[in-house]
């Protein structure tokens, strides 16, 4: 454990950008947990007398069309957006990795079936598939999460399959088999921990995609329902105000959105460095 931590610290000091990304991530998590309790205004409290005010001391990020404080909304949205991202990625990771492992380890028919399903999903223009699922099933939070999970499944399945395939005949797997471990135990207990680091890298990248996906859905009107505060829907609402000069309505949620996705992407790079420096890009 300390060996891993020391290695981590080494990588972080080598690469200041990665260190920054990790710091940012911690900040976001704190926002998500503590944010709603600490914001100055309620995210849904309207005050039409204060509508469309530029950033000031009273309203750090200004107010929107209904007079709601944008700073409060952005902070409170952190919890929702991170929640959507984490849940959908967890689902994609769980189902995708498991099916990929089975496909790669067992081969044969399992491989063919799972491979076909994954190929079918990947043959869709992914964003349109997400749109279609939400449009057909209704735009509830659950459906948005399911749709995002489905379109991110294939990446994990493919990765897990390749890695499981490579390790199938490895020495430690043979040894485990000889010890009498069941197949399930081998897959979950031997191979999975072995590929975890690589999967983790992918997880942080997918977190970013999940947030962008939710934002895109909101832009078309298939995202979360108003008056919920969510970064994507705030950018969409503020988009029409850019031309009329109320730049703050879209800019701040947009910047925070970008920072979050940025942070996840850089973290992915950093994790990759920690896990396998040879694969560094």
């Amino acid at each position, binding site marked *: 454990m300390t060996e891993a931590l020391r290695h981590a610290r080494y990588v972080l000091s080598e690469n*200041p*950008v990665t260190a920054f990304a990790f710091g940012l991530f911690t900040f976001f998590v704190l926002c998500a947990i503590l944010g709603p309790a600490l914001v100055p205004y309620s995210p849904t409290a309207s005050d039409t007398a204060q509508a469309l005010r530029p950033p000031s001391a009273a309203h750090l990020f200004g107010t929107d069309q209904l007079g709601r404080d944008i700073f409060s909304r952005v902070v409170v949205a952190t919890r929702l957006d991170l929640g959507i991202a984490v849940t959908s990625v967890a689902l994609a990771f769980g189902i995708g990795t498991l099916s990929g492992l089975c496909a790669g380890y067992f081969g044969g028919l399992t491989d063919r079936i799972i491979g*076909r*399903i994954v*190929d*079918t999903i*990947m*043959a*869709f*223009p*992914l*964003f*349109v*598939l997400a*749109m*279609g*699922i939400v*449009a*057909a*099933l*209704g735009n509830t939070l659950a459906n948005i999460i399911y749709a995002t999970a489905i379109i991110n499944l294939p990446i994990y399945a493919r990765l897990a399959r390749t890695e499981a395939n490579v390790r199938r005949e490895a020495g430690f797997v043979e040894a485990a088999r000889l010890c009498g471990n069941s197949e399930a135990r081998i897959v979950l207990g031997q191979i999975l921990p072995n590929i975890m680091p690589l999967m983790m890298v992918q997880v942080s990248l997918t977190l*970013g995609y999940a947030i*962008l996906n939710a*934002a*895109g859905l909101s*832009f*078309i*009107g298939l995202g979360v329902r108003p008056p919920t505060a969510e970064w*994507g829907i705030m*950018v*969409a609402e503020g*988009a029409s105000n*850019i*031309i009329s000069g109320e730049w703050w309505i*879209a800019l701040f949620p*947009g910047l925070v*959105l*970008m*920072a979050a*996705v*940025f942070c996840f*992407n*850089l973290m992915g*790079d950093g994790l990759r460095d920690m896990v396998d420096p040879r*694969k*560094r*890009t």
Partner: protein
Amino acid sequence: MIVLRRLASALPSIAGVIVVTFLLTRALPGDPAIYFAGPAATEQAIEEIRHKLGFDRSLPVQFVGYLKDLVHGNLGNSLSTGQPVSQELLTRLPASAELTFLALFLSVGIAVPLGIVAATRPGSWVDHTCRIVTTAGVSLPVFFTGLLLIYVFYYLVGWAPAPLGRLDIYNSAPPFRTGFYLIDSFIAGDFETFRAALAQLALPAFSMAIFSLAPLARVTRASMLAALGSDFVRTAKASGLSHSRVVYIYGFRNAVLPVITTLGMVFSFLLGANVLVEKVFAWPGIGSYAIEALIASDYAPVQGFVLIMALLYVLLNLAIDLIYGLVDPRVRFTA
């Protein structure tokens, strides 16, 4: 031979796509029969229309009917525009393809040199800047980038023309050859239209290019690093060859394969992701067509769009494989 085998292995996915799309679009809310029957319709009138349009038959029967139509190349009619879907897709596909190709071209033009530079100076501030800039580009929602670009370059400084679609109102489309306005106007020698089309393409292409910089720059950097660290490059340097020869002829040429694969991936991703850009720039492509149809619960265009995209994806992968085989002799024999 390889081509046929590859195509055959792709058939199950296409079949899967057809079935899933059919089910999804039938699950869309909204009742086309009520839409058509109009505001004064009685229950009876609605039922008549439902029967006329074939919606009262069971799902399996409707599916068989759909398959029969597909075999004849009939993708159905759009409920909202009333036009045959196949015709609309054919006229709109070149618009999306032209935009995507130009975006890809721009993206490669910026990302590959950046990747090469970053690879020749790993760990330096240039390397870090490259990573930050490309990652920033991919972190912004693409519709946001588009809107910002319009605000700055059209509204504020007036460099870009009005976001009215493929051409402004004073130019008409060049005679149809490929459907790509740049190519068609060039062939016809009509440089005024060429300029106008290019001007309209600039902003949307840039928005999409910004979004696809990261994967290309990353993979260029990675494979360049691998190539530059290899034995044959060390030999070339030791033999006293010039820096540019080493980097470009020995390094890059050998590093280009993964870039091509990523290019294919990025292209298919862009084709699907340009729905949002098309909405922002009023671009008459298949992306905006699909979105409008989806929101309107207009099932035929959505089915047609997804099918075309799936086919394109299969063909694209096939093309990549073939190019790969051409470029790298080692791959050819392992197909």
